């Protein structure tokens, strides 16, 4: 089986484990002063970040601290605050879990999560994650390509899109109880078939080397690194191959704010945020946030731009 090579930072760019865990302490003691001058902990270590940016990679391409990845989440099923998913997901049971694969496929099937893992395994993928709210992380996922599952299911001729459905469990997910103004449940998402088949598109079952915590979308979620984070539907229960563009949750909520494609694009602003730059979570200080320019397709243009050739990205945002 061919291993897909995707752009990732050189190992020299990744913060060593020891240094990584001392970052918090460093941040505490240095508060302001040193950090405000733009110096990042670990930078003194080597000129690796400089070399990295010379290869066209943003200077600070180090994984976001695990604590930040697991405690700064948008997962409205558990609540609207970033801290809610970690705090309020204790009652969620990600196992046992089944994923139904159906629609325009040769072999519709209900997969047990363990069967999926046994069949497709998992590999490490270090991806940038860009939220539509203009912040970003770098996350070490474990998972398998969605394309592998779709190929196994046998996509029928005439299929054009893939629809995803998340879980509805109001008893375990406080954000799904009541809530006058909340999203409609279940959360639904969709991709064009070629996007779904793209080797960058991942079904993640782990993060930081461990099974996904509830707040990150346990036990299985979508990761599409060149799109805004809300496309990455969490706790997937159903994957349906279809010939019609499926509805997507945020698009239903506010169609003028969230398009079907939701490709990261610094030139197409959100009505509430400029998308030209992003705050790097886990870096910076209380007195100066860390920011960097946002890149078209979140820096994955080389891999995915061809999917959108001839399209007006302002219209199909």
């Amino acid at each position, binding site marked *: 089986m061919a291993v897909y090579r995707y752009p990732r930072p050189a190992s020299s760019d990744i913060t060593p484990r020891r240094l990584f865990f001392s970052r*918090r302490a460093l*941040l*505490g003691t240095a*508060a*302001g002063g040193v950090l405000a001058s733009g110096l990042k902990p670990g930078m003194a270590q080597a000129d690796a970040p400089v070399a990295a940016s010379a290869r066209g990679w943003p200077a600070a391409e180090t994984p976001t*601290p695990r*604590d*930040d990845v697991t*405690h*700064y989440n948008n997962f*409205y099923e558990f609540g*609207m605050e*970033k*801290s809610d998913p970690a705090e309020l997901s204790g009652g969620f049971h990600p196992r046992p879990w089944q994923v139904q694969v159906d629609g325009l496929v040769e072999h519709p099937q209900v997969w047990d999560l363990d069967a999926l893992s046994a069949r497709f395994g998992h590999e490490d993928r270090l991806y940038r994650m860009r939220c539509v*709210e203009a*912040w970003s992380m770098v996350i070490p996922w474990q998972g398998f390509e969605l394309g592998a599952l779709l190929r196994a299911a046998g996509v029928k001729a005439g299929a054009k899109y893939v629809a995803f459905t998340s879980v509805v469990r109001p008893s375990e997910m406080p954000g799904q109880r009541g809530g*006058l*103004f*909340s*999203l409609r449940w279940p959360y639904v998402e969709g991709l064009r078939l070629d996007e779904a088949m793209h080797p960058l598109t991942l079904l993640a079952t782990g993060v930081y080397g461990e099974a996904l915590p509830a707040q990150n979308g346990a036990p299985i979620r979508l990761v599409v690194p060149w799109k805004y984070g809300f496309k990455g539907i969490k706790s997937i229960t159903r994957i349906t191959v279809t010939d019609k563009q499926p509805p997507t949750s*945020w698009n239903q*909520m*506010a169609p003028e*704010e969230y398009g079907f494609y939701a490709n990261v694009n610094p030139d197409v*602003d959100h*009505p*509430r*945020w*400029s998308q*030209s*730059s992003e*705050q790097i*979570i*886990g870096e*910076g200080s*209380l*007195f*100066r*946030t860390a*920011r960097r320019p946002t890149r078209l397709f979140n820096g994955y243009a080389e891999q995915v731009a061809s999917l959108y050739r001839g399209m007006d990205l302002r219209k199909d945002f």
Partner: protein
Amino acid sequence: MAPPSSGRRRRSRFSPLTRQVFLYLFCLIPAVSDIAQGMANTLGPNPVSVCLHDFGRWAFRFLLISLAVSPLRRFAGLDFMVYRRPLGLLAFSYAALHVVFYVGVARHFDTHVLWKDFTSRPFLTFGVLTFLILLVLAVTSTRRAIIALGRRWTKLHKLVYVAMILASVHYAIAFKTWHTEPFIYAAIAAVLLSLRLVPKPGKRTV
């Protein structure tokens, strides 16, 4: 100026100014606490946004409290008039911190980005207008300004009602979805503002 219920009130050991200063400093505790926690890195993954939003909410709260002072005196006979100025200044101080965190810490004083923000994003436009009003009210809150402006001072400071409405809109539309809290704040604001519409007995409208 004798408050209607002054007879029942105990005389304080401290001068009004001392009490005003004490209230002001005491109410800065949330700001000090946020900044201390932020520096100790115990505010979570995005301390800047926690501070930014906390300061905004505190500004709103003090605006509400300062607007409750005169209805409390009129309808409940409770006189906190001496604290109205520090409460108003607290609203302004927290609003100023909120703005400084947005403009400086989050946006790095990037005037190009800020101008685009303020002109193209409705919730920020509402926020800027609110702050400009509070700024004008704060600089004209000195005794000297009150004397210099005379009757116009009362008129000018009615702008606080406009600020209250603008702030309510700013807060309500700042989120991706409708949140409950802004509507609770707006409801309190609506009550406080509508109390001003109750006609005063024995006083004809001019």
